[in-house]
Every structure is written in C-alpha cells, then in structure tokens.
C-alpha cells in the first residue's frame, strides 16, 4: 500500500464536488431523481472512477477492465456524472437524463449507456452478478476486479444475502463490496425500518473480510480500496459510513431527500453550499 498524495486527495475532493453539482443539476432539471443516496456515494465514485478503477473510457468493453456495478441503482445520477466526467460520453448528455431522445434511463441500463456494466434499479442484485463475473475468471481469460456499490436498502433484500453466501463459498476475492451505509432509506431511518446491525458481525459471519471507514474521507476510501486488493482468501466489504444528502445542510440525514426534488430556492442554496466548501 502506498500513501496517497495530498494533491490526489484534493483532486478527488473536487471530483466528488463535481459529481454532487452535476447530480443536483440533473435532479433539478429533470424534476426527478435521488439526491440523498447520490450525494452519500460521491467520494466513493470519485475515488473509483478518477483513480482506482482500471478502465479505458475510449474502450468501454475492454476485456481487462475492472467492473463496477451500481447495485443501488437509484443513485444513477451520480454514476452518470462520474461516467460523463470520466469521458465515457459527453457531459452535455447529462442534461438529457430521462429524455426520450437520450441514452440515460431513470436507472442504469447497460444496453443503452456506455460504461454502465450492469442494469439495475430494484435493490440487491449487484453482489450475485459480481460473483458470476468472478467465477468467469476462474475459467480463464482476462483478470479484473469487480466492485459493487450497495446500500443499506440493498442489504435488506434476500438476494443480496444469497449472493453473499455464493461469494463466500467460492472465496470471491475478486469482489469488493462497498457499502454506502448512510442508514437512511425512503421511509425513514434504516435502523427503524429494518435494522441491519450488527452488520460487521453479519458480514464476517458470511465469510467476508470487513474494512470499516468513513465513506467521505477520501484517504480512507483509497486506502481501503487498496487493502481489499491485497486480500486473496475471501471477498471484502468496505463498510463505508456515510451521510445521506452529504454536502447540502438541509438534505443531510433526512429521509425526505432520498427521492425529493429541490424547489428553486432550495436548488440555489444547495448549489451555493456545494460551491462554497470543498
């Protein structure tokens, strides 16, 4: 593991801010979307797409690319922002999110959007798809790592735990789950709606190595991503504690902003707050 430079960290902080600004614009323009869970994942997406992933935006289907699956598909706007800013498609396309003549669907669509590895929308699917991608490597061919961004909502679905069983059975060290654990879901706090705790114990019991970080601390995010690559005996989950709506004061930690759209005053304030701080 190598230390990450201050300049890298500040560059990625700027990328995360851009992802949030793009997301805010997209949600406001389209009058639909999920700002809360997009903002909570901004640093994770920035770290992946602007430093960690082995990818080539000019060749989205490069066989040796790392795979990223957005299991929490409602954070589509943040993913689209990352992909556009990384060069998979023009940034102007973001303005056509949800438009009939655009390629950006409400939730990610692997068929229509360059760079989207897996279609998603309903929660919980990503981990088991990643297991299949890992098993494919056992049969020969290019080597790559598979990243799955899951939410606390994802982990309430049965298929996610089925996928965890399979990942453990096959010791899928090629799979790293990043859990964007903001503890807020559509109807309220996850710990009220359907508690996941003790979550670290559960992941460990399911045969995962668990790394616990602050998901907004880019140094911790990068270090954990590096560390996961060094674990060769089992799959890894990076339990990233995050804040729903991170970066906009009135959105933070509120279930309302899971899927709400700001009015013009709120939009202006959110934009000012995002531009004001790094």
């Amino acid at each position, binding site marked *: 593991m190598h230390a990450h430079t201050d300049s890298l960290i500040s560059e990625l902080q700027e990328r995360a801010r851009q992802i949030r600004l793009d997301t805010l614009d997209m949600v406001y323009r389209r009058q639909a979307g999920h700002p809360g869970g997009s903002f909570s994942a901004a640093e994770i997406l920035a770290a992946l797409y602007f430093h960690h992933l082995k990818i080539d935006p000019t060749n989205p289907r490069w066989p040796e690319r790392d795979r990223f699956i957005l299991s929490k598909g409602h954070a589509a706007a943040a993913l689209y922002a990352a992909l556009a800013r990384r060069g998979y498609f023009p940034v102007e396309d973001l303005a056509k999110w949800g438009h009939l003549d655009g390629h950006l669907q409400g939730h990610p669509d692997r068929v229509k959007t360059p760079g989207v590895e897996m279609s998603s929308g309903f929660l919980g699917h990503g981990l088991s798809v990643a297991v299949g991608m890992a*098993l494919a490597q056992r049969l020969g061919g290019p080597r790559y790592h598979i990243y799955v961004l899951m939410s606390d909502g994802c982990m309430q679905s049965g298929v996610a735990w089925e996928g965890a069983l399979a990942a453990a059975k096959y010791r899928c060290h090629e799979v790293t789950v990043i859990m964007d654990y903001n503890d807020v879901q559509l109807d309220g706090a996850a710990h009220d709606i359907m508690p996941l705790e003790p979550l670290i114990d559960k992941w460990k019991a399911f045969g995962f190595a668990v790394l616990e970080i602050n998901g907004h601390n880019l140094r911790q995010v990068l270090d954990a991503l590096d560390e996961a690559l060094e674990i060769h005996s089992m799959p890894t989950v990076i339990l990233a504690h995050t804040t729903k709506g991170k970066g906009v004061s009135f959105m933070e930690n509120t279930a309302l902003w899971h899927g709400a759209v700001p009015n013009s005053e709120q939009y202006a304030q959110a934009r000012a707050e995002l531009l004001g701080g790094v």
Partner: protein
Amino acid sequence: MAEVPQRQAYGMALAEYGDVNPDVVVLDADVSSSTLTKYFADRHPSRFFNLGVTEASMVNVGVGLALSGRIPFVNTFAALLTLRACEQIRTCVAYANANVKLIGGYAGLSDYKDGPTHFAINDVALMRAMPNVVVIAPADNIEAARMVRAIAEHEGPVYMRISRAAVPDVFGPDHQVHIGKGIMLRSGNDVTIIGSGSMMGRCVRAADQLVAEGVSVRLLNIHTLKPLDVDLICQAAEETGALVTAEDHSVIGGLGGAVAEALGRCCPAVLEYVGLQDTFAGTGLDTESLMDAWGLAVQDIVNAARRAMERKARRR
C-alpha cells in the same frame, strides 16, 4: 414410446455439447440429480456451479458469467426458476439482455409425485411476457437434445422448459430444429391441432384417431412459443378455419394464448384450448394418468377438435 425421460435426453445432450463448446457453463440449484445436469457436472466439473437453494442469486450469477463472455445454462425446476427468480429474470436477464439460458426442468405436471407446488403451469405465460426472451418447449427427446446447441448458438436470453417424464418420440434422429420455426407434421384441411412440448405425442395420437375417422387433420408442432411462427399458424387458420391448441400448461398465457394473440391479428378463426383450465391440478401416481385426469388426455384433444369443427360449421 421413448426409452428415457426428456430431462435425461437434455442432460446428456448438455454434457456432450460441453465437449465442443468450452464457453458453456452450467449452474444448478441443488437439484442437479433431478434436472440431470449432474451429467455435465461429472464430465466438466470446473464448469459446473451448484449454487444451492438460491434461485434468485443463481440467475444473477449466470448473468455475471454471461456478461463475462460465457454461455451459462441456469437450471432448476421450472416453477422455482420462473417464480422465485422472476424479478431477476426480468431485470438482470431480460432488461440487461444478458446471454443467459434459463432451463426449467419438471415443467407442466411432470413432477406428478410432488404435486401442485412443484408444477409449472404458468412459466410460459411469465416468460413470454419478458421482452428479449425466447421461449422454447421441445416436443420430445430428439428436440430437447437438438435445442441445446440451438439455444447456445442463439445470442440472447432463452427460457426452455423440459419435462421430467418420458415423452413419446415424435421425431426421428435426423430431426433439425430452427428457433422460431414451427413444424407441420401432417397436412389437412378440416381442423388444425397445434401442440407444444410434452403434449406433442398426445397430439399425434389424437390426430391419428381423427384421421381414422375420416377427418382431414393438420398437425403443427410449435417448439418455439416466442417468437411464434405466426405465418404457419395463420396459414393453418385460413386453410382449416378450426384450430385446437394443446399444452401442458394453463390455457392462459401459454401456447393457447399465444395462438389466440396471433389469430386476432391475422385471421380470426375458431379456436379450442386443451390445457389446465385456470386451475391447480392435484398430486398423482404417475404423469400420464395425472395429465389424463386434468383434461390433457388424447380424448380431450379429439373432443376439442370436434367442437372446433362443429363451431366452424355453424359459422358457415
């Protein structure tokens, strides 16, 4: 009559096809000794994955393999596959247009001893409604075996249902299948019997009986339920004016539904339906008598053909 159950023909063909296509991988959900994917597992252990009783996750694992260039055959009982993993099939297979081959063993009433929980009587209806998904029901052992290569070579998602039971031979060893193309087994002008899957042998017997009575019977085998061979069916409707569908499935949404949809577009004609009449069946002591008891007997097809011809006569 066939010597071996259709599942066995499928399992053996899959294992053999594994010899020639190294991209084929096989997944099963703890029922490989029932679906008979164990033949593949024995022959190609590194390309076989038993996922246990995790049908939903198993389908997604298949998707991951497909998106990585493999050709996964994902197997379990037809009812479990299409019901438990229905949403995964919708989102991760169909919507993502992943090259996954979904194989439903124990289709229709063929799991006679386990009863209605294990019968797949609406799997075709569910899978037909999935965009991008081809739906196949092979008529006999030859067709089940031939379909392995055909669906592997088809680029895109496929659902195929296989009977647990021995089904009568309809075709000879030289039989070739072409996805999307129905087969006219007998030409005739009074009535058309359209069969699919494990009902095909019974359709042949029903046609023989009617022919012996002097009826000119057209007999079609529809192994591909989607995309349906609309031309073949509409030609039969135009030239015979009376049709019967026969399937080991609910009459709602399966072969009968598909044919009705086609006729509504091209040539409305008299149509009778042999199949489960919107009911659960019961448990039986063997597949043949169970099918007979629940309205899938040869005589039911014959009676339906007579009704169709009577209705046609009244229209004139």
